[in-house]
């Protein structure tokens, strides 16, 4: 299903054989000149190419890591992204982005000013990519959002060796340790089975989380129809077009309560406590999100069945990935950057937080 790619193409991380425990020497023994990449409050800017990565406002040329709305805004002159990300943007904004340029995983695009950009799977959602930027032998990886767990709906994250690793930190606190997804799916199915006269209403982010949840339910042997809130239908349709099997899905609208009893209903988190849910037979409110690890977060959203399912790396994965990629410098874009900075300091890794605005703590 995925375009083939291989380690050799990106260069596998050197692991412990490279720099050891300290910051160590730089890859090619010379000081980093990073004047060609500049963190701005509105996104990462590449001055020689006049191009931006995930800019928060409309620009002439944008490289987009994935389709979530805080990273993939509309109105750019040219949008460079994977085919799936462009399709998702097209679905979201009603039209394909102007000047869309598809770059498959493993493919590179040469930008002005001698910068080469390569798209590498990030394992976050369908189409999500890290972007490897190379110029004059220097390598910078922008992760966008990523996770390390297997996900039947997208290509797995590939660690890429680099000088500067620009990472997210959405769950950058050591309290965030996501349990195995199979455990959470089992709890969901056990609750469903214990209340055959009710239904379980699961709040899940409409792009990525919902489809992953459904695909994991199928993998766990749950083949009953799953009912969808209207806002989910088109994105699930798009995933199917991209070859992801989601089993039988039905719209929840206009269906009698009796028919939904004993079934799972998936809706966007915002609809969980909305009037919309009144049509359902005494729903048990669930939410699939990494934030559900903290009890009061679940309580704030009136969630009775918190499912700790996240499309982001948890603390152990964030720190293990930095150790594995072993960059000379780590830059942290958004999330709980203070704790990750502290971890880097404790492990003698040079790091800095970029004051980026506009990336939200989405309802992951």
């Amino acid at each position, binding site marked *: 299903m995925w375009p083939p790619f291989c380690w050799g193409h990106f260069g596998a991380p050197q692991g412990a054989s490279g720099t050891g425990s300290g910051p160590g020497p730089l890859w090619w023994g010379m000081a980093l000149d990073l004047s060609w990449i500049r963190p701005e409050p509105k996104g990462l800017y590449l001055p020689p190419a006049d191009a931006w990565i995930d800019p928060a406002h409309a620009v002439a040329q944008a490289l987009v890591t994935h389709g979530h709305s805080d990273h993939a805004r509309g109105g750019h002159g040219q949008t460079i992204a994977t085919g799936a990300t462009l399709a998702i943007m097209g679905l979201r904004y009603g039209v394909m982005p102007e000047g869309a340029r598809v770059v498959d995983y493993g493919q590179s695009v040469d930008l002005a000013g001698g910068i080469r950009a390569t798209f590498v799977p990030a394992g976050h959602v369908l189409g999500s990519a890290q972007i490897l930027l190379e110029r004059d032998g220097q390598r910078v990886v922008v992760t966008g959002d990523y996770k390390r767990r297997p996900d039947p709906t997208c290509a797995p994250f590939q660690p890429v060796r680099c000088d500067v690793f620009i990472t997210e930190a959405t769950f950058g606190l050591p309290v965030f340790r996501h349990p195995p997804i199979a455990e959470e799916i089992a709890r969901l199915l056990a609750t469903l089975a214990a209340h055959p006269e009710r239904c379980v209403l699961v709040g899940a982010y409409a792009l990525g989380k919902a489809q992953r949840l459904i695909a994991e339910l199928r993998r766990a042997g749950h083949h009953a129809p799953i009912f969808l809130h209207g806002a989910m239908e088109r994105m699930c349709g798009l995933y199917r077009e991209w070859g992801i099997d989601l089993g039988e899905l039905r719209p929840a609208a206009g269906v009698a309560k009796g028919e939904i009893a004993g079934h799972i209903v998936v809706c966007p988190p915002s609809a969980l406590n909305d009037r919309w849910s009144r049509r359902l037979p005494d729903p048990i409110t669930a939410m699939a999100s990494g934030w559900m690890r903290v009890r009061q977060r679940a309580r704030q959203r009136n969630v009775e069945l918190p499912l700790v399912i996240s499309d982001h790396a948890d603390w152990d994965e964030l720190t293990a990935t930095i150790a594995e990629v072993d960059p000379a410098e780590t830059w942290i874009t958004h999330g709980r950057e203070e*704790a990750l900075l502290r971890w880097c300091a404790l492990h003698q890794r040079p790091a800095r937080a970029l004051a980026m605005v506009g990336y939200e703590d989405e309802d992951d």
Partner: protein
Amino acid sequence: MERFAALVDGLVYTRSRNGKLALLADYLRTTPDPDRGWALAALTDGLDFPAVKAGTVRALLDERVDEVLWRLSRDYVGDTAETASLLWPEPAAPQAPAPSVTEAVEVLAGATRATAGQRLADLLDRLDANGRYALLKLATGAMRIGLSARLAKVAFAQAFGVDVEQVEELWHGQVPPYTALFAWAADGAPPPDAQSLPLFRPFMLAQPLEETVVDLAEFAAEWKWDGIRVQLVHVNGQSRLYSRGGDDISASFPEMTGALHVPAVLDGELLVRGSHQGGKAGGAASFNALQQRLGRKSVSKAMLADYPAFVRLYDVLLLEGEDLRPLGWEARRARLEALVPRLDPARFDISPVIAAETLDDLAEIRARARDDAIEGVMLKRRDAPYVSGRRAGLWYKWKRDPLLIDCVLMYAQRGSGKRSSFYSDFTFGCWDGDPDAGAELLPVGKAYFGFTDEELKWLDRHVRQHTVNRFGPVREVDRSLVLEVAFDSVHASKRHKSGLAMRFPRIHRIRADKPAHEADRLETLRAMVAD
């Protein structure tokens, strides 16, 4: 412990009262003794492990987790036990199976200050994150999971099909793990003896009057005194003084427990002698004076002399072996009036009934009561029996309207628990002179309630956007937002730089429309000082 942990989480996440009742009743029915008794005690704050302190948990984590990562995590999660349960490193070596609730209780109860940490750590190593959370909550005695003691008793009654009033009554004579109580409810054994012990009886409580209109022919009016509600019990030569929550506060007020010699259970307001409330003759001092006496384990002679306590009686529940609670209020009042002359007048008086024909008359009397620093009035249905809890239509409290002042928001701190992601504790100040002539703001109070959920979101956003300084969990904001603060009274205080301390301050309104320099000055607040 796994079943208890699942119960705790179920109670945390279940919103409906009936849902919580069903969960707890099922647990009590299906869990063996003594586990269920210890669990019940933990859920109703009936457990205390003196050797285990909040600091014990902190010290364990200090050995295992970087202090900055701990602080950032604690700040985000908003709860020490939960943070610790999530950060606890999983042991590398295989461990013994998870402990039962009983084993955990026994291990912790036998701990000393020196051994508590290691014992707790060994238990934590045997549990998963949810189990660790439940254990830490149990060990530190701070469940706070939205389960009141009353609800636990209702669940107990529901689990075994017994009368909840009888459960309330018998409960207070029992100690964890309540084996006799379970034997009575679950296995039909005779009820434990309650009459011959100086037990706490559940209080009858009042609802706010709000828009309700009552007929004073059916309701009697009494002052609502500004002390603390207490129950004084004397039986078989033993006396106890209980606070509203049923805590035994006898040790703080030895003059009261020595003053009652008639076998009785009395309901009244604990006050300190003075002339602040209700005039010079037989008056009471302000709440501030009473506060000097609260929470002391032992009391000096000087304290006893400077702040002599007495009880202003409202009601009589039991008298010389007779249970008067089924009688109407008027009948009980007659018994109380007959009893008072037999009591020491230095330690007891009776709360007078207010003569008012109509609610309007009463409103006028109530409005004048501010000068006497009385909190408000109580309305009691003349034919109502004395029943525990807050029953609709029997007793009402009608508080005075609050005092108001416009302050400027100065600092905000993140809340805890449900509010841990919100800046919800607000410190505000008044100008110490003319703000246009360079006056400064001095903090006058701190409030963390009074606003709606929507207003809280608004305030939280305001704080984040107007931050000028950060001090750990506290943010200093620019001096731009006026808050109308409501409060019950204000007193002189040496503890605060402004020299003033408010009682029950709460955010009444957000005055985003009002420029900060138009907020009130200290002199305005000072003029409202009541003592």
